[in-house]
């Protein structure tokens, strides 16, 4: 298993991987606040801070919502590393989020 392509991919990421995460929120909505808290803890525990979280409040910046076609909030976009991934929801389901961000198994 450790020699699988996925493992190699993870290793490569680990070397020069810096994560850029853009979180679209709707003001102080409870789901948006939950998503931000979940994302922050994920960053610390699974990326050792190797990440930048960018938040966009769609209520204030509707053009940004148009640009990224954000129909539901909260919505998280993994901007870097590529490929781009979108996760919808308050990110409460950690294993799903980690899998989506290709971080499964980075820390047990």
């Amino acid at each position, binding site marked *: 298993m450790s020699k699988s392509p996925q493992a190699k991919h993870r290793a490569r990421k680990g070397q020069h991987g810096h994560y850029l995460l853009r979180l*679209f929120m*709707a003001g102080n*909505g409870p*789901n948006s606040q*939950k*998503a931000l808290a*979940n994302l922050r803890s994920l960053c610390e525990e699974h990326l050792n801070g190797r990440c930048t979280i960018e938040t966009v409040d*769609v*209520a204030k910046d*509707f*053009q940004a*919502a*148009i640009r990224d*076609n*954000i*129909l*539901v*909030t*909260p*919505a998280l976009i993994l901007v870097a590393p590529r490929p781009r*991934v*979108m*996760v*919808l*929801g*308050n*990110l*409460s*389901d950690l294993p*799903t*989020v980690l*899998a*989506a961000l290709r971080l499964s198994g980075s820390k047990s």
Partner: protein
Amino acid sequence: MHGKRRPIPKLPTQIAGLDEILEGGLPRGRTSLVSGGPGSGKTVLSLEFLCRGAMAGDPGVFVTFEERAEAVRMNALSMGWNLAALEKAGKMAIIEARLSGDEVLSGDFDIQGLLTIVGGHARRIRARRVVMDALDVLLRVYGDRQRERIELYRLHDWLIDRKLTSVLSVKAQLDGNMAHRYEFLDFMADCVIRLDHRVLGQVATRRLRVIKYRGSGFGTNEYPYVIGDHGIVLFPLTQTQLTHQPLGKKVSSGLAGLDAMLDGGFRRAACILIAGSSGTGKTTLASAFARAASRRHEKVLYLSFEESQEAMIAGMLSAGIDLRPALRTQRLMVQTALPEAMGSDNHLIRALEAMDSFKPDHLILDAISACVRMGSEHAAFDYLMRLVAVVKERGITCILTNQMTGLAGDGEELSGIGFSSVVDAVIQLRFVDAGQEIGRQILIIKSRGSGHSNRRESFYITDQGIEFPNNLRLPSARAGQADPKDGGK
């Protein structure tokens, strides 16, 4: 509580026929729901509502959850609506709200993003109208009815708070589980319109029905509609059937002998049925009327489902009736079509368009029996009822021919498909065995609002026209009412 209520404010849709059914338009500042199966025209209807508004200077936002914005623009262009120009002019905004499908779901979310985008565009162009097309596609992402419902109520409240007159379209089969799934939408919306698209006898028919209209009356029938070249066209005719013009003065049948039998002729604005088996002279009788009308400088629209214009003119010429002068002077317009060429709704539109442009005094339809080939007996009945309703409303005399195959019975059977109640006069033609030869006889079975002969009279079709061998005369007291110049001797 009722009756005292002030009429609710409405926004006309400008869609042909719809505002009559909705008694003025959609509820202003409220939410309307349009549901229907695939191909029923939900998108066209809601798009037309928006376009007609935008073209009249009332901007609107169109949110498409299923089709690409470019596809919407193309479809609109085929109806003659230039969305790109309206967008450029700031009268319309098209929002492509399509989830790609590969998003990952984790935890709860809401449609705040969508509302923000719609709100932003609406503010930018000062929109008063919003259409959300194929809303069910967005809701599918929830996969949870409870959440779906909560989000829809959120959307509904948001639209109403902003006083937007909105149309939500939802895909629904009438008896599929989708209908059940979105039942609550019917309660939420102030106005609910159901579109039904079915195929009867290989011909597509579309029907629109208003299910509810909070605070307002509405036409409760099923209304046929077609998607024409310029959008939706509805026929809300059944509501106006009570406005028939009264029967008018006598008008010559074009045959002195028949006028005598009819106590002077037909009544103007009457609906006259000429029934008989093949070859008894139905078309000849109708053509004699047309020729006489054109000589009086009146206009006749002839709808022929039996033969081409050339064949009909040639056939009548051999029976001594020359319709060419009437055609030349444009007092006769012949519209021919194969009944099976299109659905009954399209036939009706064609006839109505001809009536609008040509403005005939009289209409001849040859023959009822062919109309069944429009799809079904039901379709033919519908077509004829609606056609006759318009004809009566406009005070146009109408002659219907019907080819009978069986034995002659009462008026009900003579019309073939049972609408004798709208028929004012019934004339029956038949063959008789007259020894060495076959003769023809004519009988007037009824003539509403007029006296008439009860005798069967013989007549001949010669190369000089129709001749009555018995020198029929008007009852002396009424002599001179008909014009004996035309037709038989």
